[in-house]
Protein backbone atom coordinates (compact mmCIF):
# COMPACT_ATOMS: atom_id res chain seq x y z
CA UNK A 1 0.00 0.00 0.00
CA UNK A 2 2.90 2.36 0.72
CA UNK A 3 5.78 2.85 -1.63
CA UNK A 4 7.98 4.45 0.98
CA UNK A 5 8.48 1.59 3.41
CA UNK A 6 12.24 1.96 3.13
CA UNK A 7 11.98 5.55 4.38
CA UNK A 8 10.21 4.76 7.64
CA UNK A 9 12.36 5.79 10.57
CA UNK A 10 12.40 3.52 13.58
CA UNK A 11 10.67 4.29 16.86
CA UNK A 12 10.79 2.14 19.98
CA UNK A 13 7.87 -0.30 19.99
CA UNK A 14 6.41 0.92 16.70
CA UNK A 15 5.34 -1.74 14.23
CA UNK A 16 3.57 -1.33 10.94
CA UNK A 17 0.41 -3.40 10.44
CA UNK A 18 0.73 -7.07 9.54
CA UNK A 19 -1.89 -6.81 6.81
CA UNK A 20 -3.51 -4.12 4.72
CA UNK A 21 -6.64 -4.36 2.60
CA UNK A 22 -9.41 -2.25 1.13
CA UNK A 23 -13.09 -1.94 1.87
CA UNK A 24 -15.65 -0.22 -0.37
CA UNK A 25 -17.87 2.03 1.70
CA UNK A 26 -20.75 3.10 -0.53
CA UNK A 27 -18.30 3.51 -3.38
CA UNK A 28 -15.43 5.04 -1.40
CA UNK A 29 -12.23 3.02 -1.04
CA UNK A 30 -11.23 2.79 2.60
CA UNK A 31 -7.76 1.56 3.63
CA UNK A 32 -7.94 -1.06 6.41
CA UNK A 33 -5.02 -2.26 8.54
CA UNK A 34 -4.64 -5.22 10.87
CA UNK A 35 -2.09 -6.00 13.53
CA UNK A 36 -1.95 -9.50 15.03
CA UNK A 37 -2.97 -13.02 13.97
CA UNK A 38 -5.81 -13.12 11.44
CA UNK A 39 -7.75 -15.56 13.63
CA UNK A 40 -7.38 -13.63 16.90
CA UNK A 41 -10.42 -11.87 18.40
CA UNK A 42 -10.74 -8.41 16.82
CA UNK A 43 -10.89 -4.92 18.25
CA UNK A 44 -12.26 -2.22 15.91
CA UNK A 45 -10.19 0.95 16.44
CA UNK A 46 -10.97 4.43 15.07
CA UNK A 47 -8.35 7.19 14.95
CA UNK A 48 -8.95 10.86 15.66
CA UNK A 49 -9.57 13.75 13.30
CA UNK A 50 -6.61 14.74 11.09
CA UNK A 51 -4.86 11.52 12.18
CA UNK A 52 -4.65 8.13 10.52
CA UNK A 53 -4.50 4.46 11.48
CA UNK A 54 -0.69 4.58 11.74
CA UNK A 55 -1.07 6.52 14.99
CA UNK A 56 -1.83 3.10 16.53
CA UNK A 57 1.60 1.70 15.49
CA UNK A 58 2.85 1.52 19.09
CA UNK A 59 -0.45 0.99 20.89
CA UNK A 60 -1.89 -1.77 18.69
CA UNK A 61 1.11 -4.13 19.03
CA UNK A 62 0.69 -3.97 22.81
CA UNK A 63 -2.91 -5.15 22.46
CA UNK A 64 -1.74 -7.85 20.07
CA UNK A 65 0.62 -9.11 22.78
CA UNK A 66 -2.52 -9.51 24.90
CA UNK A 67 -4.01 -11.87 22.32
CA UNK A 68 -6.03 -9.55 20.11
CA UNK A 69 -6.23 -8.58 16.45
CA UNK A 70 -6.42 -4.81 16.05
CA UNK A 71 -8.33 -3.56 13.03
CA UNK A 72 -8.18 0.11 12.13
CA UNK A 73 -8.77 2.17 9.01
CA UNK A 74 -7.93 5.56 7.55
CA UNK A 75 -11.03 7.73 7.63
CA UNK A 76 -12.17 9.12 4.30
CA UNK A 77 -9.80 11.88 3.19
CA UNK A 78 -7.11 10.66 5.60
CA UNK A 79 -4.08 8.45 5.01
CA UNK A 80 -4.50 6.11 2.05
CA UNK A 81 -8.30 6.15 1.90
CA UNK A 82 -10.05 7.96 -0.94
CA UNK A 83 -10.48 11.68 -0.86
CA UNK A 84 -14.20 12.30 -0.90
CA UNK A 85 -16.46 14.91 -2.41
CA UNK A 86 -18.25 15.36 0.90
CA UNK A 87 -17.29 14.89 4.53
CA UNK A 88 -19.70 14.50 7.41
CA UNK A 89 -20.19 12.71 10.68
CA UNK A 90 -22.80 10.48 9.06
CA UNK A 91 -20.38 9.57 6.30
CA UNK A 92 -17.74 8.58 8.84
CA UNK A 93 -20.29 6.40 10.63
CA UNK A 94 -21.21 4.57 7.44
CA UNK A 95 -17.55 4.06 6.56
CA UNK A 96 -16.93 2.61 10.03
CA UNK A 97 -19.86 0.24 9.62
CA UNK A 98 -18.53 -0.91 6.24
CA UNK A 99 -15.20 -1.77 7.88
CA UNK A 100 -16.98 -3.50 10.75
CA UNK A 101 -18.95 -5.58 8.26
CA UNK A 102 -15.62 -6.77 6.87
CA UNK A 103 -14.38 -7.79 10.32
CA UNK A 104 -17.13 -9.80 11.96
CA UNK A 105 -20.89 -10.12 12.07
CA UNK A 106 -20.62 -10.76 15.80
CA UNK A 107 -20.27 -8.13 18.53
CA UNK A 108 -16.69 -6.86 18.89
CA UNK A 109 -15.02 -4.26 21.08
CA UNK A 110 -15.18 -0.69 19.73
CA UNK A 111 -12.25 1.57 20.56
CA UNK A 112 -11.81 5.15 19.43
CA UNK A 113 -9.58 8.10 20.14
CA UNK A 114 -10.82 11.71 20.12
CA UNK A 115 -13.21 12.13 17.17
CA UNK A 116 -12.88 8.39 16.56
CA UNK A 117 -14.15 7.89 20.10
CA UNK A 118 -17.23 9.91 19.27
CA UNK A 119 -17.78 7.98 16.04
CA UNK A 120 -17.55 4.62 17.80
CA UNK A 121 -19.78 5.85 20.62
CA UNK A 122 -22.50 6.78 18.16
CA UNK A 123 -22.00 3.54 16.22
CA UNK A 124 -22.44 1.64 19.49
CA UNK A 125 -25.66 3.57 20.08
CA UNK A 126 -26.89 2.89 16.54
CA UNK A 127 -25.80 -0.77 16.41
CA UNK A 128 -25.83 -2.21 19.94
CA UNK A 129 -26.03 -5.68 18.40
CA UNK A 130 -22.56 -5.19 16.89
CA UNK A 131 -20.62 -4.04 19.97
CA UNK A 132 -19.31 -6.07 22.91
CA UNK A 133 -17.36 -3.30 24.72
CA UNK A 134 -16.90 0.44 24.25
CA UNK A 135 -13.48 1.97 24.91
CA UNK A 136 -13.29 5.73 24.62
CA UNK A 137 -9.85 7.39 24.66
CA UNK A 138 -10.25 11.11 25.36
CA UNK A 139 -13.20 11.29 23.02
CA UNK A 140 -15.90 12.76 25.25
CA UNK A 141 -16.50 16.36 24.18
CA UNK A 142 -17.50 19.14 26.53
CA UNK A 143 -18.08 22.79 25.81
CA UNK A 144 -15.32 23.88 28.20
CA UNK A 145 -13.14 25.14 25.37
CA UNK A 146 -15.92 27.03 23.62
CA UNK A 147 -15.29 30.77 23.84
CA UNK A 148 -17.32 32.56 26.47
CA UNK A 149 -18.34 35.65 24.51
CA UNK A 150 -21.40 37.83 23.97
CA UNK A 151 -24.07 36.82 21.46
CA UNK A 152 -23.01 39.64 19.15
CA UNK A 153 -19.37 38.57 19.29
CA UNK A 154 -20.35 34.93 18.75
CA UNK A 155 -22.35 35.88 15.68
CA UNK A 156 -19.33 37.73 14.29
CA UNK A 157 -17.04 34.76 15.02
CA UNK A 158 -19.46 32.31 13.42
CA UNK A 159 -19.75 34.48 10.32
CA UNK A 160 -15.97 34.68 10.03
CA UNK A 161 -15.73 30.90 10.37
CA UNK A 162 -18.44 30.31 7.75
CA UNK A 163 -17.00 32.67 5.15
CA UNK A 164 -13.54 31.22 5.75
CA UNK A 165 -14.93 27.73 5.12
CA UNK A 166 -16.83 28.81 2.01
CA UNK A 167 -13.76 30.55 0.59
CA UNK A 168 -11.63 27.51 1.39
CA UNK A 169 -14.16 25.19 -0.24
CA UNK A 170 -14.23 27.26 -3.40
CA UNK A 171 -10.47 27.34 -3.77
CA UNK A 172 -8.94 24.29 -2.07
CA UNK A 173 -9.79 21.55 -4.52
CA UNK A 174 -6.89 22.31 -6.84
CA UNK A 175 -4.42 22.97 -4.05
CA UNK A 176 -1.94 20.65 -2.41
CA UNK A 177 -0.77 20.56 1.17
CA UNK A 178 2.40 22.52 1.76
CA UNK A 179 5.53 20.36 1.39
CA UNK A 180 8.28 20.39 3.97
CA UNK A 181 11.30 18.45 5.08
CA UNK A 182 10.75 15.46 7.33
CA UNK A 183 11.88 17.47 10.35
CA UNK A 184 9.91 20.50 9.24
CA UNK A 185 6.68 18.55 9.02
CA UNK A 186 7.35 16.97 12.41
CA UNK A 187 7.96 20.40 13.91
CA UNK A 188 4.72 21.75 12.44
CA UNK A 189 2.83 18.88 14.01
CA UNK A 190 4.66 19.53 17.30
CA UNK A 191 3.12 22.98 17.43
CA UNK A 192 -0.30 21.30 17.64
CA UNK A 193 0.91 18.47 19.89
CA UNK A 194 3.71 19.92 22.03
CA UNK A 195 3.57 17.03 24.51
CA UNK A 196 4.46 14.34 21.98
CA UNK A 197 7.98 12.95 21.64
CA UNK A 198 9.72 14.64 18.66
CA UNK A 199 11.07 11.26 17.59
CA UNK A 200 7.52 9.89 17.51
CA UNK A 201 6.47 12.81 15.35
CA UNK A 202 9.35 12.12 12.94
CA UNK A 203 8.21 8.50 12.79
CA UNK A 204 4.63 9.66 12.20
CA UNK A 205 5.72 11.74 9.21
CA UNK A 206 7.27 8.70 7.56
CA UNK A 207 4.07 6.64 7.90
CA UNK A 208 1.46 9.37 7.51
CA UNK A 209 2.96 11.64 4.91
CA UNK A 210 3.86 11.20 1.27
CA UNK A 211 7.39 11.88 0.06
CA UNK A 212 7.10 13.84 -3.16
CA UNK A 213 9.94 15.26 -5.20
CA UNK A 214 9.52 18.65 -3.51
CA UNK A 215 9.17 17.36 0.04
CA UNK A 216 6.87 15.57 2.51
CA UNK A 217 3.13 16.20 2.62
CA UNK A 218 0.60 14.82 5.09
CA UNK A 219 -1.73 12.38 3.35
CA UNK A 220 -4.77 14.50 4.09
CA UNK A 221 -7.30 15.87 1.64
CA UNK A 222 -6.45 19.58 1.30
CA UNK A 223 -10.15 20.41 1.26
CA UNK A 224 -10.36 19.34 4.93
CA UNK A 225 -10.10 22.24 7.33
CA UNK A 226 -9.59 22.50 11.08
CA UNK A 227 -12.30 24.14 13.13
CA UNK A 228 -15.77 24.32 11.74
CA UNK A 229 -19.30 25.39 12.45
CA UNK A 230 -22.74 23.87 12.35
CA UNK A 231 -25.63 22.96 14.58
CA UNK A 232 -23.71 20.26 16.47
CA UNK A 233 -23.29 20.73 20.25
CA UNK A 234 -20.58 18.87 22.18
CA UNK A 235 -23.00 17.81 24.91
CA UNK A 236 -24.99 15.76 22.39
CA UNK A 237 -22.14 13.28 22.11
CA UNK A 238 -21.85 12.94 25.90
CA UNK A 239 -25.60 12.32 26.09
CA UNK A 240 -25.15 9.06 24.19
CA UNK A 241 -22.98 7.63 26.97
CA UNK A 242 -25.60 6.76 29.63
CA UNK A 243 -27.56 4.59 27.24
CA UNK A 244 -24.66 2.39 26.23
CA UNK A 245 -25.52 -1.14 27.28
CA UNK A 246 -22.13 -2.73 26.59
CA UNK A 247 -19.36 -2.50 29.20
CA UNK A 248 -17.80 0.95 28.97
CA UNK A 249 -14.25 2.16 29.62
CA UNK A 250 -13.45 5.86 29.41
CA UNK A 251 -9.88 7.14 29.60
CA UNK A 252 -9.40 10.88 29.93
CA UNK A 253 -6.18 12.88 29.69
CA UNK A 254 -6.38 15.73 32.17
CA UNK A 255 -3.67 17.95 30.66
CA UNK A 256 -5.48 20.55 28.56
CA UNK A 257 -4.26 20.78 24.96
CA UNK A 258 -5.24 22.70 21.84
CA UNK A 259 -6.57 19.58 20.09
CA UNK A 260 -8.46 18.27 23.12
CA UNK A 261 -11.83 19.16 24.54
CA UNK A 262 -10.80 20.35 27.99
CA UNK A 263 -13.23 17.82 29.43
CA UNK A 264 -12.93 17.30 33.18
CA UNK A 265 -13.76 14.35 35.40
CA UNK A 266 -16.80 16.21 36.73
CA UNK A 267 -18.07 16.61 33.17
CA UNK A 268 -18.01 12.85 32.62
CA UNK A 269 -19.11 11.29 35.91
CA UNK A 270 -22.85 12.14 35.68
CA UNK A 271 -23.08 10.44 32.29
CA UNK A 272 -21.34 7.14 32.97
CA UNK A 273 -23.57 4.09 32.47
CA UNK A 274 -23.96 1.59 35.31
CA UNK A 275 -20.80 -0.43 35.91
CA UNK A 276 -18.67 1.79 33.70
CA UNK A 277 -14.95 2.11 34.28
CA UNK A 278 -13.49 5.58 34.09
CA UNK A 279 -9.81 6.44 34.39
CA UNK A 280 -8.68 10.07 34.39
CA UNK A 281 -4.93 10.29 33.84
CA UNK A 282 -3.04 13.09 35.60
CA UNK A 283 -0.16 14.56 33.65
CA UNK A 284 -1.30 13.04 30.36
CA UNK A 285 -2.62 14.99 27.39
CA UNK A 286 -5.15 14.32 24.67
CA UNK A 287 -3.16 11.55 22.97
CA UNK A 288 -3.35 9.18 25.94
CA UNK A 289 -2.45 6.07 23.93
CA UNK A 290 0.61 7.74 22.44
CA UNK A 291 1.90 9.41 25.60
CA UNK A 292 1.28 6.37 27.80
CA UNK A 293 0.81 3.36 25.50
CA UNK A 294 1.71 0.74 28.10
CA UNK A 295 -0.56 2.23 30.76
CA UNK A 296 -3.52 2.59 28.41
CA UNK A 297 -2.98 -0.83 26.80
CA UNK A 298 -2.98 -2.45 30.24
CA UNK A 299 -6.21 -0.62 31.10
CA UNK A 300 -7.80 -1.91 27.90
CA UNK A 301 -6.54 -5.47 28.33
CA UNK A 302 -7.72 -5.60 31.97
CA UNK A 303 -11.09 -4.19 30.90
CA UNK A 304 -11.55 -6.73 28.10
CA UNK A 305 -10.44 -9.59 30.31
Amino acid at each position, binding site marked *: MTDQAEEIVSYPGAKRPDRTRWV*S*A*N*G*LRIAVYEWGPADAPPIAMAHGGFDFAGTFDVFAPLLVQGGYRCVSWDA*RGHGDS*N*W*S*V*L*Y*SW*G*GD*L*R*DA*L*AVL*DSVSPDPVPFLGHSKGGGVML*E*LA*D*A*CPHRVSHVINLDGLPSKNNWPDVSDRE*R*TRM*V*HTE*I*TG*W*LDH*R*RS*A*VDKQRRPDTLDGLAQRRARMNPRLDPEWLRYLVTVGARHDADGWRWKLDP*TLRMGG*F*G*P*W*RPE*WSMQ*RVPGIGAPFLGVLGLEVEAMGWGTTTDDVLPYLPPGAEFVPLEGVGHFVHIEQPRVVADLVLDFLA
Partner: protein
Amino acid sequence: MSAAAASSSVNFVRNGRADLAVHHLRGGTGRPLLLLHGLAERTPDTAPATVDHWVGPVCGLDFIGHGSSTIPAGGGYTAEVLMADVDAALGELGPCTILGRGLGAYVALLIAGARPELVRGAILADGPGLIGGGIRPSSPLVVPLDPALPVPPDPLALAELSRDVRPPDYAAEFVRMALHGSGLDQPIAVAAVVRPEWLTGVVGEFGVIELTVESALARFARID
Protein backbone atom coordinates in the same frame (compact mmCIF):
# COMPACT_ATOMS: atom_id res chain seq x y z
CA MET B 1 -37.76 16.83 -22.59
CA SER B 2 -40.53 19.37 -22.85
CA ALA B 3 -40.45 22.27 -25.30
CA ALA B 4 -40.06 24.65 -22.40
CA ALA B 5 -37.11 22.70 -21.04
CA ALA B 6 -35.53 22.69 -24.46
CA SER B 7 -35.69 26.48 -24.53
CA SER B 8 -33.90 26.84 -21.20
CA SER B 9 -30.18 26.27 -20.80
CA VAL B 10 -27.93 24.80 -18.17
CA ASN B 11 -24.35 25.40 -17.24
CA PHE B 12 -22.24 23.75 -14.60
CA VAL B 13 -20.46 25.40 -11.72
CA ARG B 14 -17.52 23.66 -10.06
CA ASN B 15 -17.52 23.58 -6.26
CA GLY B 16 -15.01 21.39 -4.50
CA ARG B 17 -15.07 18.16 -6.51
CA ALA B 18 -18.71 18.55 -7.56
CA ASP B 19 -20.23 19.95 -10.72
CA LEU B 20 -23.46 21.78 -9.97
CA ALA B 21 -26.16 22.39 -12.56
CA VAL B 22 -27.43 25.96 -12.81
CA HIS B 23 -30.51 26.11 -15.03
CA HIS B 24 -31.34 29.37 -16.76
CA LEU B 25 -35.10 29.14 -16.97
CA ARG B 26 -35.96 32.54 -18.29
CA GLY B 27 -34.19 35.72 -19.31
CA GLY B 28 -34.92 39.19 -18.01
CA THR B 29 -33.47 42.51 -16.98
CA GLY B 30 -31.92 43.17 -13.63
CA ARG B 31 -31.07 41.02 -10.65
CA PRO B 32 -31.56 37.26 -11.07
CA LEU B 33 -33.98 35.24 -9.00
CA LEU B 34 -32.41 31.95 -7.90
CA LEU B 35 -34.76 29.06 -7.18
CA LEU B 36 -33.74 26.38 -4.65
CA HIS B 37 -35.71 23.16 -4.82
CA GLY B 38 -36.94 20.94 -2.00
CA LEU B 39 -35.55 17.62 -0.79
CA ALA B 40 -35.50 15.02 -3.60
CA GLU B 41 -36.73 17.58 -6.12
CA ARG B 42 -34.81 19.23 -8.93
CA THR B 43 -35.06 22.55 -10.71
CA PRO B 44 -38.35 22.63 -12.66
CA ASP B 45 -38.31 22.69 -16.44
CA THR B 46 -40.00 26.08 -16.50
CA ALA B 47 -40.21 29.01 -14.13
CA PRO B 48 -43.23 28.55 -11.84
CA ALA B 49 -46.22 30.85 -12.25
CA THR B 50 -45.58 32.40 -8.83
CA VAL B 51 -42.55 34.22 -10.26
CA ASP B 52 -44.28 35.54 -13.39
CA HIS B 53 -43.95 39.14 -12.25
CA TRP B 54 -40.22 38.94 -11.56
CA VAL B 55 -38.61 41.02 -14.29
CA GLY B 56 -35.07 39.72 -13.91
CA PRO B 57 -33.68 36.42 -15.12
CA VAL B 58 -34.91 33.29 -13.33
CA CYS B 59 -32.42 30.52 -12.58
CA GLY B 60 -32.49 27.31 -10.56
CA LEU B 61 -29.74 25.31 -8.88
CA ASP B 62 -29.75 21.52 -8.60
CA PHE B 63 -28.26 20.69 -5.22
CA ILE B 64 -25.47 18.12 -5.10
CA GLY B 65 -26.93 14.61 -5.38
CA HIS B 66 -30.01 16.01 -7.12
CA GLY B 67 -31.09 16.68 -10.70
CA SER B 68 -28.15 17.04 -13.08
CA SER B 69 -25.55 17.78 -10.38
CA THR B 70 -22.84 15.38 -9.23
CA ILE B 71 -23.78 12.35 -7.14
CA PRO B 72 -20.80 11.89 -4.82
CA ALA B 73 -19.61 8.46 -3.70
CA GLY B 74 -20.27 7.76 -0.03
CA GLY B 75 -22.69 10.58 0.74
CA GLY B 76 -21.79 13.03 3.50
CA TYR B 77 -24.62 15.50 2.89
CA THR B 78 -25.38 18.38 5.23
CA ALA B 79 -27.43 21.53 4.82
CA GLU B 80 -24.17 23.45 5.18
CA VAL B 81 -22.75 21.66 2.13
CA LEU B 82 -25.83 22.72 0.16
CA MET B 83 -25.23 26.27 1.39
CA ALA B 84 -21.79 26.00 -0.21
CA ASP B 85 -23.47 24.84 -3.44
CA VAL B 86 -25.46 28.06 -3.48
CA ASP B 87 -22.34 30.04 -2.69
CA ALA B 88 -20.69 28.64 -5.80
CA ALA B 89 -23.74 29.54 -7.90
CA LEU B 90 -23.72 33.07 -6.52
CA GLY B 91 -20.06 33.29 -7.49
CA GLU B 92 -21.20 32.88 -11.10
CA LEU B 93 -24.49 34.77 -11.01
CA GLY B 94 -23.60 37.64 -8.72
CA PRO B 95 -26.11 39.09 -6.23
CA CYS B 96 -29.49 37.33 -6.38
CA THR B 97 -32.81 37.19 -4.66
CA ILE B 98 -33.45 33.63 -3.55
CA LEU B 99 -36.70 31.67 -3.38
CA GLY B 100 -36.31 28.35 -1.55
CA ARG B 101 -38.80 25.51 -1.20
CA GLY B 102 -38.68 23.11 1.75
CA LEU B 103 -35.07 22.07 2.24
CA GLY B 104 -34.21 24.89 -0.15
CA ALA B 105 -35.89 27.36 2.22
CA TYR B 106 -33.59 26.32 5.05
CA VAL B 107 -30.57 26.55 2.75
CA ALA B 108 -31.75 29.98 1.55
CA LEU B 109 -31.68 31.14 5.15
CA LEU B 110 -28.18 29.77 5.68
CA ILE B 111 -26.71 31.45 2.60
CA ALA B 112 -28.54 34.71 3.35
CA GLY B 113 -26.61 34.81 6.63
CA ALA B 114 -23.34 33.52 5.25
CA ARG B 115 -23.16 35.81 2.21
CA PRO B 116 -25.43 38.73 3.08
CA GLU B 117 -23.77 40.96 0.49
CA LEU B 118 -24.80 38.53 -2.27
CA VAL B 119 -28.35 37.68 -1.17
CA ARG B 120 -30.80 40.50 -1.82
CA GLY B 121 -33.71 38.97 0.00
CA ALA B 122 -34.46 35.33 0.78
CA ILE B 123 -37.97 33.87 0.62
CA LEU B 124 -38.69 30.74 2.63
CA ALA B 125 -41.56 28.69 1.23
CA ASP B 126 -43.22 25.35 1.94
CA GLY B 127 -41.90 22.23 0.26
CA PRO B 128 -40.30 18.84 0.82
CA GLY B 129 -37.67 18.78 3.54
CA LEU B 130 -38.86 21.93 5.31
CA ILE B 131 -39.03 20.26 8.70
CA GLY B 132 -35.64 18.53 8.77
CA GLY B 133 -34.53 16.29 11.59
CA GLY B 134 -35.75 18.34 14.53
CA ILE B 135 -33.93 20.48 17.05
CA ARG B 136 -31.64 17.79 18.51
CA PRO B 137 -30.29 14.43 17.35
CA SER B 138 -32.67 11.51 17.37
CA SER B 139 -31.70 7.87 17.78
CA PRO B 140 -28.79 7.31 15.44
CA LEU B 141 -29.41 5.48 12.18
CA VAL B 142 -26.59 4.10 10.06
CA VAL B 143 -27.93 2.68 6.83
CA PRO B 144 -25.52 1.41 4.20
CA LEU B 145 -26.99 1.65 0.74
CA ASP B 146 -26.10 -0.16 -2.44
CA PRO B 147 -23.68 2.13 -4.30
CA ALA B 148 -24.98 0.73 -7.57
CA LEU B 149 -28.34 2.34 -6.92
CA PRO B 150 -27.69 6.08 -7.05
CA VAL B 151 -29.65 7.92 -9.66
CA PRO B 152 -30.81 11.38 -8.75
CA PRO B 153 -31.89 12.03 -6.12
CA ASP B 154 -29.13 10.15 -4.31
CA PRO B 155 -30.73 7.90 -1.63
CA LEU B 156 -27.95 8.93 0.75
CA ALA B 157 -28.98 12.56 0.26
CA LEU B 158 -32.53 11.67 1.20
CA ALA B 159 -31.37 9.69 4.24
CA GLU B 160 -29.05 12.39 5.53
CA LEU B 161 -30.87 15.58 4.63
CA SER B 162 -34.17 14.40 6.11
CA ARG B 163 -32.43 14.01 9.50
CA ASP B 164 -30.24 17.12 9.68
CA VAL B 165 -30.57 18.85 13.03
CA ARG B 166 -31.88 22.42 13.02
CA PRO B 167 -31.81 24.11 16.44
CA PRO B 168 -33.86 27.32 16.44
CA ASP B 169 -31.03 29.36 17.97
CA TYR B 170 -28.69 28.16 15.22
CA ALA B 171 -31.19 29.18 12.54
CA ALA B 172 -31.76 32.53 14.24
CA GLU B 173 -28.03 33.25 14.12
CA PHE B 174 -28.23 33.27 10.33
CA VAL B 175 -31.02 35.85 10.47
CA ARG B 176 -28.79 38.08 12.58
CA MET B 177 -25.91 37.65 10.17
CA ALA B 178 -28.20 38.54 7.25
CA LEU B 179 -29.53 41.57 9.07
CA HIS B 180 -26.08 42.88 10.01
CA GLY B 181 -24.44 42.20 6.67
CA SER B 182 -27.08 42.91 4.02
CA GLY B 183 -27.98 46.48 4.84
CA LEU B 184 -31.64 45.48 4.47
CA ASP B 185 -34.19 46.06 7.22
CA GLN B 186 -35.94 42.78 6.48
CA PRO B 187 -33.73 40.46 4.44
CA ILE B 188 -35.77 37.32 5.21
CA ALA B 189 -39.38 36.72 4.15
CA VAL B 190 -41.25 33.70 5.46
CA ALA B 191 -44.01 32.47 3.17
CA ALA B 192 -44.24 28.94 4.55
CA VAL B 193 -47.47 27.93 6.24
CA VAL B 194 -45.82 25.02 8.03
CA ARG B 195 -43.70 26.22 10.94
CA PRO B 196 -41.21 23.69 12.29
CA GLU B 197 -39.35 24.81 15.40
CA TRP B 198 -36.38 26.20 13.51
CA LEU B 199 -38.69 28.38 11.44
CA THR B 200 -40.62 29.53 14.47
CA GLY B 201 -37.29 30.68 15.88
CA VAL B 202 -36.58 32.55 12.67
CA VAL B 203 -39.95 34.30 12.58
CA GLY B 204 -39.32 35.66 16.07
CA GLU B 205 -36.19 37.55 15.00
CA PHE B 206 -35.87 41.17 13.92
CA GLY B 207 -35.37 41.35 10.19
CA VAL B 208 -37.96 38.74 9.27
CA ILE B 209 -41.27 39.53 7.58
CA GLU B 210 -44.19 37.18 6.86
CA LEU B 211 -45.51 37.52 3.33
CA THR B 212 -46.83 35.45 0.45
CA VAL B 213 -44.27 34.47 -2.17
CA GLU B 214 -45.73 36.96 -4.65
CA SER B 215 -45.69 39.83 -2.15
CA ALA B 216 -42.16 39.00 -1.03
CA LEU B 217 -40.95 38.96 -4.62
CA ALA B 218 -42.55 42.34 -5.24
CA ARG B 219 -40.91 43.72 -2.10
CA PHE B 220 -37.43 42.40 -2.92
CA ALA B 221 -37.77 43.54 -6.55
CA ARG B 222 -37.82 47.13 -5.29
CA ILE B 223 -34.49 46.97 -3.44
CA ASP B 224 -31.12 47.64 -5.01
